[in-house]
Protein backbone atom coordinates (compact mmCIF):
# COMPACT_ATOMS: atom_id res chain seq x y z
CA UNK A 1 0.00 0.00 0.00
CA UNK A 2 1.44 3.31 -1.03
CA UNK A 3 -0.42 6.60 -0.62
CA UNK A 4 -0.11 9.16 -3.39
CA UNK A 5 2.49 11.89 -3.09
CA UNK A 6 -0.21 14.46 -2.35
CA UNK A 7 -1.83 12.33 0.34
CA UNK A 8 1.57 11.67 1.88
CA UNK A 9 2.45 15.36 1.90
CA UNK A 10 -0.84 16.47 3.41
CA UNK A 11 -0.87 13.75 6.04
CA UNK A 12 2.73 14.53 6.89
CA UNK A 13 1.78 18.19 7.43
CA UNK A 14 -1.21 17.27 9.58
CA UNK A 15 0.95 14.85 11.59
CA UNK A 16 3.67 17.44 12.09
CA UNK A 17 1.41 20.36 12.99
CA UNK A 18 -0.83 18.41 15.34
CA UNK A 19 2.30 16.99 16.94
CA UNK A 20 3.89 20.42 17.38
CA UNK A 21 0.75 22.00 18.81
CA UNK A 22 -0.35 19.20 21.12
CA UNK A 23 2.85 17.44 22.11
CA UNK A 24 3.58 19.65 25.12
CA UNK A 25 0.14 19.04 26.61
CA UNK A 26 0.35 15.32 25.87
CA UNK A 27 3.79 15.21 27.45
CA UNK A 28 2.38 16.70 30.66
CA UNK A 29 -0.42 14.10 30.70
CA UNK A 30 1.96 11.18 30.16
CA UNK A 31 4.61 12.51 32.51
CA UNK A 32 2.21 12.90 35.40
CA UNK A 33 0.50 9.66 34.42
CA UNK A 34 3.62 7.77 35.44
CA UNK A 35 3.34 9.23 38.95
CA UNK A 36 -0.39 8.56 38.99
CA UNK A 37 0.36 4.86 38.64
CA UNK A 38 2.08 5.03 42.03
CA UNK A 39 -0.40 7.36 43.70
CA UNK A 40 -1.30 4.97 46.52
CA UNK A 41 2.34 4.24 47.28
CA UNK A 42 3.23 7.94 47.17
CA UNK A 43 0.42 8.81 49.56
CA UNK A 44 1.85 6.39 52.10
CA UNK A 45 5.42 7.57 51.54
CA UNK A 46 4.65 11.29 51.71
CA UNK A 47 3.38 11.34 55.31
CA UNK A 48 5.30 8.75 57.31
CA UNK A 49 4.62 10.58 60.57
CA UNK A 50 0.95 9.52 60.39
CA UNK A 51 1.56 5.84 59.87
CA UNK A 52 0.52 3.39 62.52
CA UNK A 53 -0.83 -0.15 62.37
CA UNK A 54 -4.45 -0.09 61.26
CA UNK A 55 -5.20 -2.82 63.79
CA UNK A 56 -4.53 -0.36 66.61
CA UNK A 57 -7.64 1.66 65.90
CA UNK A 58 -11.37 1.20 65.70
CA UNK A 59 -12.86 -0.13 62.48
CA UNK A 60 -16.25 1.35 63.31
CA UNK A 61 -17.57 3.75 60.68
CA UNK A 62 -19.75 5.42 63.29
CA UNK A 63 -16.63 6.09 65.39
CA UNK A 64 -14.90 7.52 62.36
CA UNK A 65 -17.86 9.80 61.69
CA UNK A 66 -17.95 10.96 65.30
CA UNK A 67 -14.19 11.56 65.38
CA UNK A 68 -14.41 13.71 62.26
CA UNK A 69 -17.55 15.50 63.48
CA UNK A 70 -15.62 16.67 66.54
CA UNK A 71 -13.49 18.86 64.30
CA UNK A 72 -15.66 19.96 61.39
CA UNK A 73 -19.33 20.83 61.19
CA UNK A 74 -21.76 18.65 59.22
CA UNK A 75 -24.50 21.07 58.14
CA UNK A 76 -27.93 19.82 57.06
CA UNK A 77 -27.96 18.77 53.42
CA UNK A 78 -24.19 18.43 53.31
CA UNK A 79 -22.28 16.08 51.10
CA UNK A 80 -19.57 14.25 52.97
CA UNK A 81 -16.95 11.58 52.72
CA UNK A 82 -15.13 9.34 55.18
CA UNK A 83 -11.90 7.82 53.92
CA UNK A 84 -9.77 5.79 56.32
CA UNK A 85 -6.12 5.47 55.40
CA UNK A 86 -5.39 2.03 53.98
CA UNK A 87 -2.55 1.21 56.33
CA UNK A 88 -2.64 3.83 59.04
CA UNK A 89 -4.74 4.66 62.04
CA UNK A 90 -6.23 7.81 60.64
CA UNK A 91 -9.32 8.86 58.76
CA UNK A 92 -9.95 11.76 56.46
CA UNK A 93 -13.29 13.54 56.58
CA UNK A 94 -14.53 15.92 53.94
CA UNK A 95 -17.71 17.98 54.02
CA UNK A 96 -19.17 20.08 51.24
CA UNK A 97 -21.86 22.60 52.11
CA UNK A 98 -23.73 23.20 48.86
CA UNK A 99 -25.69 26.10 50.34
CA UNK A 100 -22.53 28.07 51.06
CA UNK A 101 -20.46 26.54 48.28
CA UNK A 102 -17.65 25.81 50.72
CA UNK A 103 -15.93 22.65 51.83
CA UNK A 104 -13.77 21.58 54.75
CA UNK A 105 -11.64 18.58 55.41
CA UNK A 106 -9.74 17.14 58.30
CA UNK A 107 -7.44 14.22 59.05
CA UNK A 108 -8.06 12.66 62.45
CA UNK A 109 -5.92 10.24 64.42
CA UNK A 110 -8.32 7.45 65.35
CA UNK A 111 -6.34 6.51 68.47
CA UNK A 112 -6.67 9.92 70.10
CA UNK A 113 -9.45 11.56 68.01
CA UNK A 114 -7.06 14.49 67.64
CA UNK A 115 -6.81 16.47 64.45
CA UNK A 116 -3.55 15.85 62.63
CA UNK A 117 -1.54 18.60 61.06
CA UNK A 118 -1.75 19.17 57.34
CA UNK A 119 -0.36 16.29 55.40
CA UNK A 120 1.44 16.46 52.10
CA UNK A 121 -0.79 16.66 49.03
CA UNK A 122 1.91 15.49 46.65
CA UNK A 123 0.16 12.35 45.45
CA UNK A 124 -3.19 13.99 44.77
CA UNK A 125 -1.63 17.03 43.10
CA UNK A 126 0.38 14.82 40.76
CA UNK A 127 -2.81 12.91 40.02
CA UNK A 128 -4.71 16.13 39.34
CA UNK A 129 -2.05 17.24 36.88
CA UNK A 130 -2.55 14.02 34.93
CA UNK A 131 -5.72 15.53 33.50
CA UNK A 132 -5.20 19.27 34.18
CA UNK A 133 -7.79 19.22 36.94
CA UNK A 134 -6.53 22.53 38.36
CA UNK A 135 -6.90 24.27 35.00
CA UNK A 136 -10.37 25.57 34.12
CA UNK A 137 -11.96 23.00 31.78
CA UNK A 138 -8.80 20.96 32.15
CA UNK A 139 -10.64 17.68 31.85
CA UNK A 140 -12.15 18.74 28.53
CA UNK A 141 -8.72 19.93 27.40
CA UNK A 142 -7.21 16.54 28.19
CA UNK A 143 -10.02 14.90 26.18
CA UNK A 144 -9.22 17.05 23.17
CA UNK A 145 -5.52 16.26 23.59
CA UNK A 146 -6.37 12.55 23.64
CA UNK A 147 -8.30 13.03 20.43
CA UNK A 148 -5.26 14.77 18.97
CA UNK A 149 -3.22 11.72 19.90
CA UNK A 150 -5.65 9.65 17.87
CA UNK A 151 -5.10 11.95 14.90
CA UNK A 152 -1.33 11.59 15.33
CA UNK A 153 -1.63 7.81 15.34
CA UNK A 154 -3.79 7.67 12.20
CA UNK A 155 -1.75 10.17 10.21
CA UNK A 156 1.48 8.53 11.36
CA UNK A 157 0.20 5.18 10.17
CA UNK A 158 -0.73 6.61 6.74
CA UNK A 159 2.67 8.26 6.39
CA UNK A 160 4.59 5.21 7.48
CA UNK A 161 2.57 2.43 5.88
CA UNK A 162 4.64 2.13 2.72
CA UNK A 163 7.81 1.56 4.76
CA UNK A 164 6.19 -0.17 7.70
CA UNK A 165 7.60 -3.62 7.03
CA UNK A 166 10.99 -2.54 5.78
CA UNK A 167 11.63 -0.19 8.72
CA UNK A 168 9.83 -2.24 11.34
CA UNK A 169 12.98 -2.81 13.36
CA UNK A 170 15.36 -0.32 11.84
CA UNK A 171 17.40 1.71 14.29
CA UNK A 172 20.68 3.22 13.13
CA UNK A 173 22.35 5.03 16.02
CA UNK A 174 25.61 5.39 14.06
CA UNK A 175 24.01 7.67 11.48
CA UNK A 176 23.51 11.37 11.94
CA UNK A 177 21.43 12.31 14.96
CA UNK A 178 18.48 13.32 12.81
CA UNK A 179 18.18 9.87 11.19
CA UNK A 180 18.71 8.01 14.45
CA UNK A 181 15.97 10.10 16.07
CA UNK A 182 13.69 9.45 13.11
CA UNK A 183 14.29 5.69 13.44
CA UNK A 184 13.57 5.82 17.14
CA UNK A 185 10.41 7.85 16.52
CA UNK A 186 9.12 5.27 14.04
CA UNK A 187 9.99 2.22 16.13
CA UNK A 188 8.50 3.65 19.29
CA UNK A 189 5.46 4.79 17.34
CA UNK A 190 4.84 1.38 15.81
CA UNK A 191 5.50 -0.77 18.85
CA UNK A 192 3.88 1.69 21.23
CA UNK A 193 0.79 2.01 19.05
CA UNK A 194 -1.36 -0.51 21.00
CA UNK A 195 -0.69 1.35 24.23
CA UNK A 196 -1.10 4.75 22.60
CA UNK A 197 -4.44 3.69 21.10
CA UNK A 198 -5.61 2.61 24.54
CA UNK A 199 -4.48 5.90 26.08
CA UNK A 200 -6.13 7.91 23.31
CA UNK A 201 -9.42 6.03 23.48
CA UNK A 202 -9.73 6.09 27.27
CA UNK A 203 -8.67 9.73 27.31
CA UNK A 204 -11.37 10.62 24.78
CA UNK A 205 -14.09 8.76 26.66
CA UNK A 206 -13.16 10.19 30.06
CA UNK A 207 -12.03 13.65 29.02
CA UNK A 208 -14.76 14.47 26.53
CA UNK A 209 -17.55 13.36 28.88
CA UNK A 210 -18.21 16.88 30.24
CA UNK A 211 -18.70 18.03 26.64
CA UNK A 212 -20.61 15.05 25.30
CA UNK A 213 -23.09 14.61 28.15
CA UNK A 214 -24.77 18.03 27.90
CA UNK A 215 -24.51 17.94 24.10
CA UNK A 216 -26.18 14.55 23.83
CA UNK A 217 -28.75 15.55 26.44
CA UNK A 218 -29.65 18.67 24.48
CA UNK A 219 -29.96 16.91 21.15
CA UNK A 220 -31.53 13.61 22.05
CA UNK A 221 -32.86 13.58 25.62
CA UNK A 222 -34.72 16.89 26.05
CA UNK A 223 -31.91 18.33 28.12
CA UNK A 224 -32.06 15.54 30.69
CA UNK A 225 -28.39 15.46 31.66
CA UNK A 226 -28.99 13.15 34.62
CA UNK A 227 -30.34 10.52 32.27
CA UNK A 228 -27.47 10.89 29.83
CA UNK A 229 -25.02 10.78 32.72
CA UNK A 230 -26.54 7.49 33.88
CA UNK A 231 -26.32 6.11 30.34
CA UNK A 232 -22.71 7.26 30.08
CA UNK A 233 -21.43 6.09 33.45
CA UNK A 234 -23.94 3.40 34.32
CA UNK A 235 -27.26 3.59 36.12
CA UNK A 236 -27.51 5.95 39.04
CA UNK A 237 -28.60 4.88 42.46
CA UNK A 238 -32.06 3.38 42.46
CA UNK A 239 -33.49 5.69 45.05
CA UNK A 240 -36.74 4.89 46.75
CA UNK A 241 -39.57 7.36 46.57
CA UNK A 242 -39.42 10.23 49.02
CA UNK A 243 -42.11 8.79 51.28
CA UNK A 244 -40.04 6.18 53.15
CA UNK A 245 -37.38 8.80 53.84
CA UNK A 246 -39.92 11.22 55.22
CA UNK A 247 -41.20 8.56 57.58
CA UNK A 248 -37.75 7.86 58.96
CA UNK A 249 -36.95 10.07 61.92
CA UNK A 250 -33.33 9.18 62.64
CA UNK A 251 -30.58 7.83 60.49
CA UNK A 252 -29.24 4.35 60.94
CA UNK A 253 -25.71 3.99 62.33
CA UNK A 254 -23.06 4.03 59.64
CA UNK A 255 -21.92 0.53 60.56
CA UNK A 256 -25.42 -0.80 59.87
CA UNK A 257 -25.56 1.05 56.57
CA UNK A 258 -22.18 -0.29 55.49
CA UNK A 259 -23.15 -3.80 56.47
CA UNK A 260 -26.38 -3.54 54.47
CA UNK A 261 -24.34 -2.42 51.49
CA UNK A 262 -21.93 -5.32 51.90
CA UNK A 263 -24.81 -7.78 52.03
CA UNK A 264 -26.39 -6.19 48.97
CA UNK A 265 -23.18 -6.62 47.00
CA UNK A 266 -21.84 -10.05 47.89
CA UNK A 267 -18.24 -10.83 47.20
CA UNK A 268 -14.81 -10.20 48.69
CA UNK A 269 -15.10 -6.44 48.61
CA UNK A 270 -13.10 -4.25 50.94
CA UNK A 271 -14.99 -1.13 51.96
CA UNK A 272 -12.73 1.82 51.31
CA UNK A 273 -14.79 4.96 51.37
CA UNK A 274 -18.21 5.97 52.61
CA UNK A 275 -19.72 8.92 50.83
CA UNK A 276 -23.02 10.53 51.65
CA UNK A 277 -25.24 13.36 50.56
CA UNK A 278 -28.28 15.31 51.74
CA UNK A 279 -27.24 14.63 55.32
CA UNK A 280 -30.06 15.16 57.80
CA UNK A 281 -32.77 15.46 55.16
CA UNK A 282 -35.41 13.00 53.99
CA UNK A 283 -33.37 12.33 50.85
CA UNK A 284 -30.19 11.39 52.74
CA UNK A 285 -28.24 8.42 51.49
CA UNK A 286 -24.78 6.93 51.68
CA UNK A 287 -22.80 5.38 48.91
CA UNK A 288 -20.33 2.69 49.86
CA UNK A 289 -17.27 2.45 47.65
CA UNK A 290 -15.55 -0.89 47.63
CA UNK A 291 -12.72 -2.60 45.87
CA UNK A 292 -12.41 -6.29 45.26
CA UNK A 293 -10.09 -7.64 47.90
CA UNK A 294 -6.63 -8.62 46.67
CA UNK A 295 -4.18 -11.09 48.03
CA UNK A 296 -1.61 -8.30 48.16
CA UNK A 297 -1.83 -5.82 50.98
CA UNK A 298 -0.84 -2.97 48.69
CA UNK A 299 -3.04 0.00 49.52
CA UNK A 300 -5.16 1.14 46.59
CA UNK A 301 -6.58 4.33 47.95
CA UNK A 302 -5.04 7.09 49.96
CA UNK A 303 -6.66 9.18 52.62
CA UNK A 304 -6.62 12.26 50.44
CA UNK A 305 -8.81 10.63 47.83
CA UNK A 306 -12.04 12.39 47.01
CA UNK A 307 -14.82 11.89 44.50
CA UNK A 308 -14.56 13.73 41.23
CA UNK A 309 -17.24 15.25 39.15
CA UNK A 310 -17.06 12.55 36.50
CA UNK A 311 -15.78 9.62 38.47
CA UNK A 312 -17.84 6.62 39.39
CA UNK A 313 -17.24 3.96 42.01
CA UNK A 314 -16.37 0.42 41.03
CA UNK A 315 -19.47 -0.69 42.89
CA UNK A 316 -22.14 1.38 44.49
CA UNK A 317 -24.99 0.23 46.62
CA UNK A 318 -27.90 2.14 47.98
CA UNK A 319 -28.72 2.13 51.61
CA UNK A 320 -31.15 4.44 53.24
Amino acid sequence: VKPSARTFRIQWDVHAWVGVVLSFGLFIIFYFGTFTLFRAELSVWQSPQFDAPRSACSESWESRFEAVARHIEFPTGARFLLAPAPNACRVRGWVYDAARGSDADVVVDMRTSERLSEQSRLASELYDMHFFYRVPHGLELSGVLALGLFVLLVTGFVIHIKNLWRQRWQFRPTLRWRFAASDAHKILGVFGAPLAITFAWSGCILGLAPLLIPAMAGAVYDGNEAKVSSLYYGPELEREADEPYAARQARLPFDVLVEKARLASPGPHAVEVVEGDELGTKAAYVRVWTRTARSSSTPQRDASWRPRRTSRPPHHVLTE
Partner: protein
Amino acid sequence: VSRTRRDHDVAKTWAALVAAPVTAYLIGATLSRLLPLQEDAAFAWGVHVIAPIWVCLVVLLPLARDGRRAWAYCLLIALPAAAFLALHDADGRRPTSMETAP
Protein backbone atom coordinates in the same frame (compact mmCIF):
# COMPACT_ATOMS: atom_id res chain seq x y z
CA VAL B 1 -4.15 29.28 -7.37
CA SER B 2 -1.38 26.73 -7.20
CA ARG B 3 -2.00 23.18 -6.11
CA THR B 4 0.29 23.64 -3.09
CA ARG B 5 -1.67 26.75 -2.09
CA ARG B 6 -4.94 24.85 -2.37
CA ASP B 7 -3.54 21.99 -0.30
CA HIS B 8 -2.82 24.42 2.52
CA ASP B 9 -6.11 26.29 2.30
CA VAL B 10 -6.92 27.89 5.64
CA ALA B 11 -10.58 27.03 5.15
CA LYS B 12 -9.65 23.35 5.21
CA THR B 13 -7.92 23.82 8.53
CA TRP B 14 -10.98 25.55 9.94
CA ALA B 15 -13.17 22.78 8.58
CA ALA B 16 -11.02 20.21 10.40
CA LEU B 17 -11.10 22.24 13.62
CA VAL B 18 -14.71 23.40 13.66
CA ALA B 19 -16.84 21.46 11.20
CA ALA B 20 -15.36 18.06 12.06
CA PRO B 21 -16.38 17.96 15.74
CA VAL B 22 -19.83 19.39 15.02
CA THR B 23 -20.43 16.89 12.24
CA ALA B 24 -19.18 13.99 14.34
CA TYR B 25 -21.41 15.03 17.21
CA LEU B 26 -24.47 15.34 14.96
CA ILE B 27 -23.82 11.88 13.48
CA GLY B 28 -23.48 10.39 16.95
CA ALA B 29 -26.62 12.08 18.22
CA THR B 30 -28.59 11.00 15.15
CA LEU B 31 -27.41 7.42 15.51
CA SER B 32 -28.38 7.28 19.15
CA ARG B 33 -31.87 8.47 18.15
CA LEU B 34 -32.15 6.41 14.98
CA LEU B 35 -30.66 3.02 15.73
CA PRO B 36 -33.32 0.35 16.24
CA LEU B 37 -31.79 -0.77 19.51
CA GLN B 38 -32.68 -0.38 23.12
CA GLU B 39 -32.01 3.07 24.45
CA ASP B 40 -28.78 2.35 26.32
CA ALA B 41 -27.31 0.37 23.43
CA ALA B 42 -28.28 3.06 20.93
CA PHE B 43 -26.73 5.70 23.18
CA ALA B 44 -23.54 3.68 23.55
CA TRP B 45 -23.18 3.32 19.80
CA GLY B 46 -24.00 6.97 19.21
CA VAL B 47 -21.60 8.37 21.77
CA HIS B 48 -18.76 5.98 20.95
CA VAL B 49 -18.72 6.73 17.24
CA ILE B 50 -18.24 10.45 17.82
CA ALA B 51 -14.50 10.33 18.55
CA PRO B 52 -13.60 7.98 15.66
CA ILE B 53 -15.68 10.00 13.20
CA TRP B 54 -14.14 13.21 14.53
CA VAL B 55 -10.67 11.77 13.99
CA CYS B 56 -11.54 10.47 10.51
CA LEU B 57 -12.84 13.88 9.48
CA VAL B 58 -9.76 15.67 10.84
CA VAL B 59 -7.61 13.30 8.82
CA LEU B 60 -9.70 13.25 5.65
CA LEU B 61 -10.85 16.87 5.33
CA PRO B 62 -7.34 18.17 4.54
CA LEU B 63 -7.36 15.81 1.57
CA ALA B 64 -10.29 17.70 0.01
CA ARG B 65 -9.47 19.62 -3.15
CA ASP B 66 -10.04 22.98 -1.44
CA GLY B 67 -11.57 24.50 1.67
CA ARG B 68 -14.95 25.08 0.12
CA ARG B 69 -15.30 21.38 -0.68
CA ALA B 70 -14.16 20.42 2.81
CA TRP B 71 -16.93 22.51 4.33
CA ALA B 72 -19.39 21.21 1.76
CA TYR B 73 -18.65 17.60 2.67
CA CYS B 74 -19.28 18.36 6.32
CA LEU B 75 -22.47 20.27 5.60
CA LEU B 76 -23.66 17.45 3.37
CA ILE B 77 -23.57 15.15 6.38
CA ALA B 78 -24.33 17.59 9.17
CA LEU B 79 -27.36 19.35 7.75
CA PRO B 80 -29.53 16.23 7.24
CA ALA B 81 -28.49 15.02 10.69
CA ALA B 82 -29.36 18.36 12.27
CA ALA B 83 -32.67 18.46 10.41
CA PHE B 84 -33.50 14.96 11.57
CA LEU B 85 -32.75 15.85 15.19
CA ALA B 86 -34.76 19.06 14.95
CA LEU B 87 -37.79 17.37 13.43
CA HIS B 88 -37.87 14.36 15.72
CA ASP B 89 -38.41 15.11 19.38
CA ALA B 90 -37.56 12.69 22.15
CA ASP B 91 -41.10 11.34 22.50
CA GLY B 92 -41.67 7.65 22.10
CA ARG B 93 -38.27 6.67 23.34
CA ARG B 94 -37.44 3.03 23.50
CA PRO B 95 -37.05 1.52 26.96
CA THR B 96 -33.60 0.66 28.23
CA SER B 97 -32.52 -2.94 28.53
CA MET B 98 -32.72 -2.60 32.31
CA GLU B 99 -36.34 -1.49 32.11
CA THR B 100 -37.28 -4.43 29.93
CA ALA B 101 -35.31 -6.97 31.95
CA PRO B 102 -37.55 -9.64 33.48
